[in-house]
């Protein structure tokens, strides 16, 4: 097995320069001043963004892999893609999904009559999306879900429905990046 045990050097602070400490003060000042000037000048000439994002006026850029709150995918004809099979309900570790199915169209098709997500319990783990066999529930890029009432934390089917055209990044990620390479 390569690699070895090395002993850390404790004498770094024992040198004369370090003991005098004046040099350390100068060094510290130079480092902090360098950060300051680089940020300031970079900001003024627009080359360097500040590290702080002024939320909510500015938004943070997320990676395409980002998981936000789960939403229901709406097809072009306005209906949900969900067939109320209940797998997401089963997979959810916190039991935050509630589904009551109903049958439509001569009893051939199923759809959720009720599809509620208690977003205050949801922990954005993405297991519902992984379990879904229909690409019907996906993790959107939406994270601002705070509410001041208990009722506001319960998202119903109408609130959750999102047209597929608004979810291109996530749907693309599920189909390409998220997809496990065929075994």
């Amino acid at each position, binding site marked *: *097995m390569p690699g*070895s*045990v*090395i*002993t850390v*050097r404790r004498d770094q602070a024992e040198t004369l320069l370090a003991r005098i400490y004046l040099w350390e003060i100068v060094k510290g000042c130079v480092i902090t001043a360098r950060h300051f000037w680089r940020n300031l000048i970079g900001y003024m000439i627009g080359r360097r963004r500040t590290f702080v994002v002024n939320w909510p006026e500015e938004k943070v850029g997320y990676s395409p892999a980002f998981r936000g709150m789960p939403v229901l995918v709406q097809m072009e004809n306005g209906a949900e893609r969900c067939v109320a099979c209940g797998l997401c309900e089963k997979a959810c570790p916190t039991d935050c999904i509630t589904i009551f199915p109903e049958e439509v169209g001569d009893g051939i098709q199923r759809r959720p009559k009720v599809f509620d997500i208690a977003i205050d319990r949801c922990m954005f783990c993405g297991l519902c999306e992984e379990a879904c066999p229909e690409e019907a529930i996906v993790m959107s890029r939406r994270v601002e879900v705070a509410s001041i009432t208990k009722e506001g934390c319960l998202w119903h089917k109408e609130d959750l429905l999102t047209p597929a055209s608004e979810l291109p990044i996530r749907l693309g990620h599920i189909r390409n990046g998220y997809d496990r390479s065929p075994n």
Partner: protein
Amino acid sequence: MSGANFPQRRTDPVLPRLTERFGDAIVGTHSQHGDETAVVARDSLHDVMAFLRDDPDLSFDMPTDVTVVDHLPRTPRFEVAYHLTSTRDLRRIRVKVQLDASDARVASVKDLWPGMDWHEREAYDMYGVTFDGHGDLRRILLYPEFQGHPLRKDYPKTRRQPRLGIEDPG
């Protein structure tokens, strides 16, 4: 910077030496998935643990973990599982003691390894197994007024405990 080497891992099994030394006190052994496990009679636990620590050939010097498994319908109900590690030989052993629900007590090994202190307190807190001779067996993760032992299988997950008010400190 020195180039000292790592200790070599010993691969010879521990269990034969233990059964040879203690005989009937070892109730059962197995090495499932490579984890050497000895089930020890309750009364000889402290002797076995002291032997594991002090024997120059074994020298299990590090207490890794203590926990309890609750096999509810089965008897004996509780199984206290100790994990020990030897930092010299890089070996592990699991020592288990089986306890009945009516008499869930076992000798404490805090005097052998001080590191067992909090683990035993946690096992008491979560399962109500008493460690005799521990001396400081308080609840550790839960508050003193908590009723029952939450990791027992007959403790419902959704049970709520009364909320305590803030006591008047004066």
